[in-house]
């Protein structure tokens, strides 16, 4: 595949495909094709898509190593930013449908009191309910990664430092899965699938770094013995 087709055909297509879930949600919500509780559907769907994109992001490097198809690397940032995009939509839906909708409006809806009460309500909830705490934490871990995702930031931090920072995405995966796990009532099959995916991808990474370290060690040992 040439650089041009990748940049001007494949990438835009993948971008559009990644937007499909939110497009579908917007269509279904506006035409009454969601369930009788559409706000709950939107909250659940944006959350699940955030976790899916975190998994896709984590899968790209192992997949690249396994297939040797290097252009895959060009999609890693896009996948990560889409994970952040869906997680942000998920968080905003919660803020509006769960927190804002439950407020009292003593001074009318459009007032400073509302904003203050909303902030207090979100903070209290994040503090009080463990599954909300870990969900918020998952979103928070993505924030520095999204901000430093530009080429300018890679240059500013330097490749090594940037790489180290972006390993945080594994923590994002684990915390996000924990959030899903603590949310379900009794059937843990779905969170279990995502937990398994994150574990396998993490195992891949650990295996690779161990092998690398072992390799460095043997080079070091050889150098010592020849000295």
């Amino acid at each position: 595949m040439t650089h041009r087709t990748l940049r001007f055909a494949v990438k835009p297509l993948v971008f559009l495909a990644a937007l499909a879930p939110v497009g579908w949600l917007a269509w279904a919500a506006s035409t009454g094709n969601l369930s009788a509780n559409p706000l709950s559907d939107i909250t659940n769907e944006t959350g699940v898509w955030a976790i899916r994109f975190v998994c896709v992001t984590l899968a790209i490097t192992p997949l690249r190593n396994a297939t040797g198809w290097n252009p895959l690397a060009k999609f890693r940032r896009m996948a990560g930013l889409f994970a952040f995009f869906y997680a942000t939509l998920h968080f905003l839906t919660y803020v509006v449908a769960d927190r804002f909708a439950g407020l009292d409006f003593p001074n009318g809806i459009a007032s400073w009191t509302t904003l203050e009460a909303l902030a207090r309500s979100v903070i209290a909830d994040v503090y009080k309910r463990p599954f909300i705490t870990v969900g918020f934490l998952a979103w928070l871990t993505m924030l520095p990664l999204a901000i430093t995702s530009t080429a300018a930031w890679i240059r500013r931090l330097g490749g090594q430092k940037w790489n180290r920072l972006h390993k945080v995405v594994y923590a994002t995966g684990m915390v996000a899965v924990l959030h899903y796990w603590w949310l379900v009532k009794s059937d843990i099959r779905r969170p279990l699938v995502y937990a398994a995916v994150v574990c396998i991808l993490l195992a891949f990474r650990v295996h690779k770094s161990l092998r690398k370290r072992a390799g460095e060690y043997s080079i070091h040992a050889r150098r010592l013995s020849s000295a």
Partner: protein
Amino acid sequence: MLIKPTVDIASSEITDKKHYVNRRDFLRVAAAVVAAGAVVEAKGAPHGRKLVNVNRAFPRPDDKVNSWDDITSYNNFYEFGIDKGDAGANSGRFVTSPWKVSIEGECKKPGFMDLEDILKGEALEERVYRHRCVEAWSMVIPWIGFPLANLIKKVEPTSKAKYVEFTSFADSKMMPGVRYPILNWPYREGLRLDEAMHPLALMVVGLYDEVLPPQDGAPLRLAVPWKYGFKHAKSIVKIRFVERQPLNSWQQQASNEYGFYANVNPTVDHPRWSQATERRIGEFFRRKTLMFNGYADQVQSLYAGMDLRRNY
């Protein structure tokens, strides 16, 4: 005379049941993967047989009643799957007629009762009840039924009967959710005898003047509107009178989250979420949840002197 069928297919050619069941599971998983991201479309149950001579004397609340489509497309019925739309989507094979209920335990008239016997002599009435799910959403539902007390009186509980246990139907062939141990099947619920005898406790057989559709717990379910939705046992096949408090399924599953009483109470939070407000299906702003779901005047005397924080 014994006629032996000739076997012309070698047994080795017959697919082992294990394998074709696996294949079906695979297809189901494949279909689920394809459908991933697609929320089940909210479509209500097809309309069924009309119920006639329904008494409408029971006072209606001011609340706007939820639509047939809302009530029949959005509910928890884990026997059919864990999503709210699963009961509507997967209850097509659920046969609810003929129906027998086993009456057991501390009563003078144990034995099987046909649904017809249960309904004999009962005047059906409409009761528009608020329905509050433990997940903090609610609906207003025009149930059709008769007081549970009438049925209990018919079978004459003995003086030893202090509680009533309800067991729901569970059949993995008709109910795909039962194939997985999401809960300890069959589903069991219970009431104290005085709660069960309360005039608000309703045996439900209909909805909106029609026979109850399968996804809402046909042909016979409970409505106890001052309690969370999970107390409303669906598709009841067994009613047992017992001396000791029975262990209901959700309490067995997670006793720190779900108790025996499960009275709607805005001041006692579920460990993972608040019960102070609820989303009425069809509304954007959340409502304040009312003590005993707004039925405090009628039922609070049942719990006089009880610590409702401990007996959640």
